């Protein structure tokens, strides 16, 4: 009998498994119940009466027969945020707040909820989004603008896009014009940054090389590092330059030398401090982490990294926060898209400003802002607004087998209009030529909106 009673342990194991499963599930309930509720169609998106933009325009009303904006441009500019009718685009943004919209909490569930009168107020503006969409003019890319002192995102546009009332069939992989049609590139794609990454190298140099502003760097149009030849654009020889001139010229030869001066370690530390390789969480979106890999830290790799080629990838939304940190002289507000969520008139969520970790010292940020404004004065006429101090840097990133990706990032150095911006145009050619006019249009639209609010 003893030998037999020992073997009844099997029943004990089963009972243990059942209880363990229960415990595991209760823990999962504690962690994921909000997620589960946010998938609910009946009490979920249906619980929203309307979604409005920052100017109060209704951009989405799920209960209506035609739920999207009457303005075709706004529809196309916002469909990636609001989701389409076919379910190809997940409305991550709205689902994030369904628990609040239906009055869900983990203790009472949806008991006593009132459905169908939820109101989501976005920080983006339909007019700015429309301008941004038009400015992209059918090219693939993304534009983001946000207030680096509050975190409000005024513009987050992605292309290619479509009209939710006239959705194209699901494109096949070979259709390059509609590549990534359902992706929001601002959050879910990483790009080679090109020369806008020189802002990272510059910050590292300003912080680690004490006499960097007194040094000069010579450029003969190309430089050989570790046996590898690095060219300036069109092999143009820039001659002897200060850091200020090198940044304005976006001189690759100078930055190859500056990167060596800074060294692999300090450069990597700076990239980590800025959070290039981390994912940001923005109202239901988790940005795709960038990459920064110096490999064996050979000299030529370091040189390329300092220029922003080959070894670096950045996410537009994440990089935008770096612009905000320079502008704000240290750290920036974390971006958000939803200002307020209310249900039946009761406010259930109100956005508040959170901050990034410090990315740059105040002294370095002051100097870098000055250098970036010099860029604008010297190089980027379209954004050289009178009365508003714009600071920026352009980039032209080489992509294998494709035309260059054009990038442009910067900010308005102003307490009244604290906006940081980033523009990426795939196969867009020169960053300065392609992107600076786009940025000018979008920023102008933003300034108009902010002026009307003030």
């Amino acid at each position, binding site marked *: *009998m003893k*030998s037999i009673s020992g073997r009844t342990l099997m029943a004990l194991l089963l009972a243990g498994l059942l*209880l363990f499963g*229960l415990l595991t599930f*209760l823990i999962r309930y504690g962690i994921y119940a909000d997620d*589960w509720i946010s998938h609910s169609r009946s009490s979920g998106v249906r619980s929203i009466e309307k979604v409005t933009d920052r100017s109060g325009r209704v951009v989405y009303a799920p209960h209506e027969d035609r739920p999207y904006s009457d303005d075709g441009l706004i529809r196309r500019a916002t469909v990636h945020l609001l989701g389409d009718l076919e379910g190809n685009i997940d409305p991550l943004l709205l689902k994030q707040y369904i628990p609040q919209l239906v009055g869900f909490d*983990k203790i*009472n569930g949806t008991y006593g909820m009132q459905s169908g009168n939820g109101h989501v107020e976005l920080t983006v503006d339909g007019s700015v989004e429309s301008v941004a969409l038009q400015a992209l003019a059918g090219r693939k890319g993304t534009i983001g603008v946000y207030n680096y002192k509050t975190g409000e995102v005024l513009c987050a546009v992605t292309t290619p896009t479509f009209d939710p009332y006239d959705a194209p069939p699901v494109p096949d992989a070979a259709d390059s014009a509609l590549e990534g049609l359902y992706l929001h590139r601002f959050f879910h794609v990483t790009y080679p940054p090109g020369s806008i990454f020189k802002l990272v190298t510059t910050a590292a140099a300003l912080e680690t090389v004490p006499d960097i502003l007194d040094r000069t760097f010579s450029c003969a149009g190309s430089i050989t590092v570790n046996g590898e030849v690095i060219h300036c654009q069109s092999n143009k020889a820039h001659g002897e330059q200060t850091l200020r001139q090198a940044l304005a010229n976006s001189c690759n030869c100078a930055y190859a030398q500056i990167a060596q001066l800074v060294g692999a370690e300090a450069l990597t530390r700076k990239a980590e401090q800025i959070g290039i390789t981390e994912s940001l969480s923005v109202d239901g979106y988790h940005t795709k982490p960038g990459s920064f890999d110096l490999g064996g830290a050979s000299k030529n790799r370091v040189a390329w990294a300092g220029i922003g080629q080959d070894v670096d990838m950045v996410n537009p939304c994440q990089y935008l926060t770096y612009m905000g940190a320079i502008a704000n002289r240290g750290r920036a507000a974390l971006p958000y898209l939803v200002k307020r969520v209310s249900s039946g008139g009761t406010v259930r969520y109100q956005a508040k400003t959170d901050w990034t970790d410090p990315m740059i010292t105040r002294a370095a940020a002051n100097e870098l802002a000055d250098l970036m404004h010099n860029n604008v004065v010297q190089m980027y006429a379209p954004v050289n607004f009178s009365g508003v101090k714009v600071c920026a840097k352009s980039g032209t990133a080489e992509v294998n087998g494709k035309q260059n990706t054009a990038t442009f990032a910067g900010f308005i150095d102003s307490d009244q209009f604290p906006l940081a911006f980033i523009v990426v145009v795939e196969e867009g050619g020169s960053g300065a030529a392609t992107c600076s006019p786009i940025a000018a249009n979008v920023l102008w639209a933003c300034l108009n909106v902010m002026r009307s609010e003030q």
Partner: protein
Amino acid sequence: MQAISDFIGGADGVSLLGVYHTLLRVSLPILALFVVVRSARSLLGFRREPEVWAWLRLATGELLPVTHWENLIGRKKTADVVLSFATISKNHAVLTRHDDGHWTISDVGGKGRVEVNGTRVMHSRVNYGDRISLAGLEMSLEQVSREEARLQAGARTRAGKGHSPGLTLILLTILQVLVVLSFLLAGVEGQTTILTAYGILAAVEWCLFFAQKIIRRSGFEIETIAFFLMTMGLAVAGSANTANLYKQLISMGLGLIVFLALGFCLRNLETAQKLRYLAAGAGLLLLLANLVLATRVNGSKNWIYIGGMSIQPSELVKVCFVLAGASTMDRIVTRKNMLAFVIFTAFIGGCLVVLNDFGTAAIFFIGFLAIALLRSSSYPNAALIVVGVGMAAVMAVSVVLAVKHFPHVGERFSGFGHIWSHMNDNKGYQQTRALICIASGGLFGLGPGNGWLRNMAGAGASDTDLVIAFVSEEWGLLMAAMLIVALASLGIFVVRSAKVARSSFYTIAATAAVSILLAQAILNFFGTVDFLPLTGVTFPFVSNGGSSMMACWAMLAFLKACDTRQNASFAVKLPEKEADKG
């Protein structure tokens, strides 16, 4: 009832909501907690004093207690009477007590001989005072005096001591009243039916309780747990489809008849052993009937329709299987009847391939594992391993066949683990709705008739496969958790009881029965919450299903038969009466 509801509702709608909120919603899970915890503590907290049935007096004068009806005597440590002498075999003999109180000794094939009064025997009756010699080691069997028996009975933990089963049942009844009140206040359709159903349930449980009181049995925890599970099962039926209430009650009635009959049969081990053949025969017939008459539903050929009733024979075969698989110690050690059981299992395995129901195959496999594990306790048994592999193969085949012929079954498996990508197809529809509704119910539930899952009862299987989610949505996650805890406590009870079991027959049957119940609960609950693929197995006593309800009650008889606490179980004879006979 409408009048009551109107009266309270009409008087003051706002405060009514308040009363409902604070009083009912919160007190229901608290009451359930009390019922479950009291039952479980009573079941699990007893001291496990062995019952001494006789003494073995060695030539040295040393007295060894004989604490079971079946006692393995041998040299190895796991023997019940350990004789550490080199001449004694590891498994030397089995000393068995019979229903009428007489004893037998069997030589179980060790190298040493067994002699009774100087004569070598293979199997022989032993009277008190007889001289037994095991490989030359002399001893005699001595009776337990009536005084010793009385003292022993007095010292043992009485069932229900410290946790009055009557009080627990009163708490359960209050719970049932509150459940009914919730239904009335919610204004659900079919209130009269619901009220009647719960009335019948309460009447049955109290009748059973007092009937057991009359025959001086005080262990009612196992039944209380079953009635608690049924309370929530009826709550599901009341919300999903009141027509199922009476069906569930009739099935409970039939199940109770089997439960009582089986329980009384199990008191006498010899009767129970004869019953095995009947059970095996009935099991075979049921399966054959199943194969000939059954209709294929959702790919599984598992249902017989007679008149308006649907029967799932495989549910009842489980009971036969457990009974047929149980065996006494002397037979286990001498491997008697093993071949018959192996053939029986192989036949069932074959039928399961035709039935093509993965869930049922898995349940039988667990039951088989429990029995095989216990029966092969003293040695590795090739035949059992072969059959075990065979049963595993049956499960594999049923999955493959199902996937091949019935795409939706395959989809359930392929959707496992990424249900949220398949919210609107067969791969994840049920589980995602289950999780959403569990969250929706929160800890205290939305109240009866207020859930969404009731819309997918019947064909959508929310009242069977997803029943935990159903309870969770309408009665809260705490209540659903109580159902699971209650069932798990039965498993732990069986394991604890095994140490003081009288016969391996009871231990094997109870372990197999409770393993099957637990396996059903695991497959059901884990399937619902996407820890495992959905297999369509019922949750014992809660899921809607007549055959399942009957089978679950019948299974409980095996648990009652292993409850050897003093005066606990109607399926166990009182020792003092035994002593009279002996």
